[in-house]
């Protein structure tokens, strides 16, 4: 990311970052609490020190393995992901980062022949339990994909899709949710006049933010991001990262990334996965400055992978 881009963003108006209480909504419980008005690297460092004492973990994996038929996706993963923090998963291609991420909301079920072992809990419930209601799970665990994939519908309909699934029909309520979600995704000012236009007319970065808004509209606890910036240019990437920073004290965010700088910039904790196994999991600062494994050090210094 260039200095120029940094400056441009720093100078950008911050109007989207303050959430006005809306009529008909209890002002003391805003739908989406915004982050501090300015979230910059210095502030991030300060936050990172604050997240040293995590609460009860939201996602717990205990000896979790997932197989594609006879092929191993991930094996014996044991890690705790803490609420209101950003957890990055890094590792070489094909190592199982995305597989693990997609296990959390069971999107792997789309691939025939998958089989899970061990425990993977979200808010205390084993998601691979047969009794788990997939619809509820996926509404609690939102997901943003690698490539922006808005529906070929209007911007409004894209954001309202989740709430409508949950049974919200009244346009009064939908309008509130759509506006709040778009504001939370810092997209409102750009699209507020074009809500009925097709989402496919937006730029790539805008589309990805729209996907984020769409995921936020179902009011999830956990937000999974599968390489959300890999298809975006540096400026759009920066915007997404700023958003992650703003959303971090409201949501539990798990982000898979190829980009180690990005992991270092946005995450509180980082997990390094290699060949389907968890190699190291620690505070981001620790992992990047003082890794305890040789393999991790080799990877982050670029000697392998």
């Amino acid at each position, binding site marked *: 990311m260039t200095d120029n881009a940094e400056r441009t963003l720093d100078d950008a108006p911050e109007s989207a970052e303050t959430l006005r209480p809306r009529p008909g909504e209890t002002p003391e419980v805003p739908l989406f609490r915004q982050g501090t008005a300015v979230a910059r690297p210095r502030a991030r460092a300060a936050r990172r020190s604050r997240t040293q004492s995590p609460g009860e973990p939201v996602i717990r994996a205990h000896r979790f393995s997932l197989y594609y038929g006879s092929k191993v996706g991930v094996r014996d993963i044991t890690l705790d992901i803490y609420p209101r923090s950003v957890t990055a998963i890094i590792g070489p291609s094909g190592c199982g980062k995305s597989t693990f991420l997609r296990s959390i*909301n069971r*999107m792997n079920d*789309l691939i025939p022949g998958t089989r899970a072992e061990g425990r993977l809990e979200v808010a205390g419930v084993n998601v691979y339990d047969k009794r788990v209601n*997939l*619809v*509820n*799970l*996926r*509404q609690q665990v*939102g*997901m943003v*994909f690698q*490539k922006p*994939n*808005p*529906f*070929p*519908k*209007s911007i409004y309909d894209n954001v309202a*899709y*989740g709430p409508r*699934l*949950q049974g919200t029909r009244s346009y009064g309520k939908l309008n509130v949710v759509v506006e709040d979600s778009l504001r939370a995704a810092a997209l409102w000012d750009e699209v507020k006049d074009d809500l009925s*236009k*097709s*989402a*496919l*007319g*937006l730029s790539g970065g805008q589309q990805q933010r729209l*996907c984020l808004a*769409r*995921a936020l509209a*179902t009011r999830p606890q956990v937000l999974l991001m599968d390489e959300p910036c890999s298809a975006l240019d540096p400026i759009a990437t920066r915007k997404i990262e700023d958003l992650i920073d703003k959303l971090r004290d409201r949501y539990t965010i798990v982000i898979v990334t190829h980009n180690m700088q990005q992991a270092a910039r946005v995450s509180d904790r980082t997990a390094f996965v290699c060949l389907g196994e968890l190699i190291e999991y620690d505070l981001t600062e620790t992992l990047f400055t003082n890794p305890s494994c040789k393999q991790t050090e080799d990877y982050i210094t670029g000697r392998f992978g």
Partner: protein
Amino acid sequence: MNVPRRLLADRGFTALSFVSVALISLVLVVVLVPMIYRGATAVVFRGTAAFRQMQFEMHDRGDPETVQAELAEVAKARAPAYDLLDRFGRGIDTEHLEDEARQVYQDVGKDLERQGIRGDERLEARRLARALRDALVEAFESSESDAAHERLAFVLSHENDDRIRGTSGERFFRMARDYGDLLKTVDLGRRDEYAQALAEVQDALTRLFGPRPGGDRSPLAMYRYGATRMDMAERALDDFLFAERWVNAASREALVRQRIPREEQFAGTPLAAIFPMVRENVEAMLRPRLTFYWQYLLDDSVPGHFFGGVGPEILGTLVITVLVLPVVIRASEEAIRAVPPAYKEAALALGAGRLRCFLTVQLPAALPGILTGVILSMSRAAGETAPILFTGAVSVGPALSVFDFGETSSGWFDWLFEPTRALSYGSYDLAVGDRVAAMVPHQQYGMVATLIVLVLFLNAAAIVIRWRISKRLRGQ
């Protein structure tokens, strides 16, 4: 070919196709507008009393008392016209008068027998009756006024003759007096001319009012009722009020059509009064009322035998549907498969079930492709006339053995399966004004118009929907 020339050719080709599209549209408009208009008038029109009578008698629609009351009213309004016609007809059409005279002569014979008169007296009486009869018949047959009057005078001179007093023979004198009165108004020299015109008038009146009440009724429904609709009635009225003659205006020129008011044609006769009478009272005589007639969709068409049953149409449609189904399915499959899997993933990640995901995301995205398949298949189906030929393409004829239930038929659904016309042929007939089409009492143009409008509307709607969806999908 160099680039500018190719460009020119390309533009020319584009222009040509636009012109052809415009031409086709124009032709469609020229052909369809009259047909659709006729179709509309078949559904909404001013129905006369005869229409309601037909509906009641053929389809059991309407309240019997109301219909009967209306028919009685109408008959009352028409009665004076029929009276005039009869009175004049007696003077012109004398055959029945001659028959009556002969009948009276026979009655005289019977009366004499009953009175017990025998011998010479009886012979004398019969001779006189025969002479009177012959004189009357001669008078009736004569086309010369003087001769006729002479014969009538001869008859009347025997009015007080004792020989036939008290028998039916007295009717001779009444007939002679009546005919004498008639002769004052009728120019016997023009009797033939009148006879021909009278036949025309009677024919037009039958088309207007239907057959005379109490007369013979045709087994064919198309001859059984008068004008059922006001537009038809107006045509019949025109024939009734005006005679059409082709006259040679100038030698070696084409004949010229002339419209002669019948009032002029019959000027000076008692019949002349009938024309203003009918013209002014036509509303009372026909009682037209604005009618919305949709039941043609249900009508049993046996009497008209023009459109046939609905069954073959439906079966043909089904057969064609089955024929084009593979094309539609294939196109839909491809279209659904072409939807990016990312859409499905996104929907599922938001908590949609599979069916919900399909209905709200995949299907809308695939709709343009599916519609393309449907439109193409519809065009193909339109060309598939073979199944139609098999299931029904004739309007009159024996039913196919498949539909022939013979003795086992319970009857009520027979009309469903009787032979029917292929739409293309039927609409052609309608467009060019086929004779049968014009005479079917309930012109069912509506059915054809409905079908055509339906097909056009479906096509147009599909094209518009496809256009809009693809525009939205392109992100405009």
